[in-house]
């Protein structure tokens, strides 16, 4: 090892690689971003105005049951002869509702806890964080199963279950964010100016915590959808006339050998949604946190 390699051990290489990566990926990144935005827009439209997007009514049962994809039924039909594509379009509202709703619950609860713990510090911090750690040791899906099993299947409970199972992540992220901002000199500056705790929180700390929170929440929406489909798949979801994506996936299970499309297409929709949300989240991170860009 030469003096140089001791002196600047990793940095140069890292910079070089990073530069290369950036160069190569600029174009493909734009294509991917456009794709994921279209996917999300499609799903969003479906959720808002399914009547416009669907080709059939979701409750309409045609003669052709378990028909494979064709011009009449784009993605085939299920065992009742319902059009899979239309079912997916109508089911998107529920999936999105669960995703967004549970993120709101989990994110809000987690942020408030993390903010309090990080800013207050001391025993309250220890108390909250031990609690969060405890929750963290229980796998999210298990916890969600527990809640929906005890509360019974309904949309509200599903949102609650998924939300509660994801809040520890938000709490942890928020706390570390608050801690790093709290030690910045401009917080000292603000308190020597005479700003109250409330003012410091409102004007300095929360705005500086928001970007990573937004990013995390975006990506979290995807995760929440995934958890909710998992629950539905296990039969803990909401049983309604129109099945949500996860339930549809599980319905198709029994017919997988004769009608693979019933399961496959919901699966594809779920993956596309989650992947698109993740890509968008990454892009948001680049946008909102300029420092992580380089």
């Amino acid at each position, binding site marked *: *090892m*030469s*003096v*140089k*390699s*001791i*002196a*600047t*051990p990793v*940095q*140069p*290489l890292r*910079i*070089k690689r990073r*530069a290369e990566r950036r160069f190569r990926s600029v174009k493909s990144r734009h294509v991917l971003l456009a794709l994921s935005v279209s996917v999300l827009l499609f799903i969003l439209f479906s959720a808002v105005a399914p009547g416009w997007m669907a080709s059939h009514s979701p409750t309409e049962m045609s003669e052709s049951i378990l028909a494979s994809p064709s011009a009449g039924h784009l993605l085939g039909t299920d065992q009742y002869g319902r059009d899979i594509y239309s079912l997916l379009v109508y089911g998107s509202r529920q999936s999105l509702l669960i995703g967004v709703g549970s993120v709101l619950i989990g994110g809000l609860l987690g942020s408030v806890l993390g903010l309090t713990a990080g800013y207050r510090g001391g025993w309250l911090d220890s108390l909250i964080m031990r609690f969060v750690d405890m929750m963290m040791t229980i796998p999210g899906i298990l916890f969600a199963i527990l809640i929906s099993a005890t509360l019974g299947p309904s949309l509200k409970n599903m949102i609650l279950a998924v939300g509660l199972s994801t809040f520890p992540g938000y709490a942890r992220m928020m706390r570390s964010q608050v801690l790093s901002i709290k030690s*910045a*000199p*401009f917080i*000292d*500056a*603000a*308190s*020597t*100016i*005479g*700003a*109250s705790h409330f*003012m410091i929180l409102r*004007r*300095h700390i929360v*705005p*500086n915590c928001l970007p990573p929170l937004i990013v995390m929440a975006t990506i979290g929406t995807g995760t929440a959808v995934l958890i909710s489909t998992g629950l539905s798949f296990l039969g803990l979801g909401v049983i309604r006339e129109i099945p949500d994506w996860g339930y549809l996936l599980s319905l198709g299970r029994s017919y997988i050998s004769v009608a693979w499309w019933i399961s496959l297409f919901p699966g594809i929709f779920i993956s596309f949604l989650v992947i698109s949300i993740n890509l968008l989240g990454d892009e948001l991170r680049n946008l909102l946190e300029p420092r992580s860009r380089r």
Partner: protein
Amino acid sequence: MGTLLKLNQVSIDFNTRQGPLRAVHHINLEIGTGEIVCLVGESGSGKTITSLSIMRLTDYEGAVISSGELMFDGHNLASLSQKEMQELRGKRIGMIFQNPMNALDPLFTIESQLVDSILTHRRVTKPEARKLALELLQKVGITEPEMRLKQYPFELSGGMLQRVMIAIALSCDPELLIADEPTTALDVTIQMQILQLIRELKDTLGMSVLLITHDFGVAIEMADRIAVMYAGAIVEQGPARKLITAPEHPYTQGLIRSVQSYHSHSEGLYTIPGSIPPLQELPTGCRFHPRCAFASERCRQEEPVLALTREQHQVACWNTAEAGQAFAEYATHKETAAPINNLAALPAEDDLLVDIQQVTKTFPLRGSLFRRSKKAVHAVDNVSLRIYRRETLGLVGESGCGKTTLGRLLVQLEKPTAGTITFDGQDVSSLSDREWKELRRRMQVVFQDPAGSMNERWRISEVIAEPLHVHIDLNEQDRMARVKETMKLVGLNPDWHTKYPHELSGGQLQRVCIARAIILKPSFILLDEAVSALDISIQSQIVNLLKDLQRELGLTYLFITHGLDVVRYISDRIGVMYLGKLMELAPAEELFTRPAHHYTRALLDANPSMDPDHHAQSSISDIELPSPIHLPTGCRFHTRCPAATERCRTEQPELREIRDRHWAACHHPL
């Protein structure tokens, strides 16, 4: 004396998205065998990238050597492959950096890193390498080398780590040592020791040294020859002594004059107007012309090149004759100006503003989960201090002496463990929240890092207006009017209020911080290393501003710093702290001309001066600063004091007035 390294018309470009950006332009530099050359420049001058280019580390920084050649003993470094460079690096050229902590691997002991380095460069067996490692540590003056070898980097102090880095650099007997700001992160007494070490090593080993620094004082201490860089070009170079006493380039002259004016008692420091232009916006012609007092039409059109003006002395300037003449006049004038005794001019000590009485602050160390630690860091120990209205009290000391903590206690960013602090008659710890908020209006703070002390997402106007939001109910219009008025007062263009912090330079940002501090018309401002991070030409501008504001607004300052020159210039009285104790307190001039405490003496001795005849020295025993957890008994300074006696080891000296208004805590004052 042969030439070891020769840079011939070297240019370095950064690769950016907008195309290549010229960072260094047509540099010529020579280093002879056994010579110390100093490359002096402010931030953004290109001195560091130049030094990296010699090691060809520029390749890793996204920069290329776009033209010219770097001849090192017959090889053109610019055309070697990285592999061939690897042969030279560390073997024939060694390098040390500003921050040794980053350069050492925290997971390995000093010994293994040193032995590794020896083994790659020399054909020796492992036990031999171990022996060599020990010898090297002795050579660089590390005490108890056997013990140090077994330690990890975090267990060593900054000064010792820099010695280790030097040892690693020496492990293969390099012919050239490149030292990039090797002492900037160190305290002044330690800095002196490291510089001395480099000089000794150069003498005994006959190696050449390229020293990169922003500090003219260091350059004068060390250099045989000095090269001055400005905005990517060398503007002047020549033998050190002559360059300092008779500089010919207006930029060099400006720098030297501003440094020297700290020692005069003139009203206001000498400053160079403006600031270094960013690389993207280099002016045409001479790159210094927008800031130059001698600029003529030709300077705006044509770029001057380095030309010989006297023996071995090169200057890149069209009007050297005029400039040289002007400096000569200044120099004679300066010598005749008599220093004034400012004891009489001190502010009256009747109007007490801040009274710090026997204040102590300890930070308990965190124990493990199961065992509470009884140990604590004694940051401030039983300090009493008074600050009078309209005066500037300077507080100096090296890192860890407690000066910053004392300041933070005063503005209640920390709560004292014991003692009382009274501000304008009110005991600050007994105030209700509302009273305390009222008091906050009258005491403000300016911190060291201007960029860090403002919310980067806010506009300048919002930053400056923050105190108004907190304390005064104003409508938008009145608030903006106040903000703009204050911006003018601190020398900022009021039209900039919509800018964001990252659009301003360091000096401008510090003006923003000052604007924020004065907008409520406080009576007291704590300046915590407020000018320490700024380049010298900017620093003098800010110091002048602070002085002007003090006069206009009747402010009282507590000026905390490690910079001795600045504190001498700006302060009426100065307190010296060491390991949490106030060691000496005296009027500024008195303290600098007749220090009474041995520690103060050592500090002053170690401070590099602008006088080429006066060498800074280390009058301190070569022992590192004790840790603030295990404090020495008796006088805290006795482990390093050259005059320590038995009494010093056992009995703690009290602060007492040894001369008129001159206090010192020493049993045997000077």
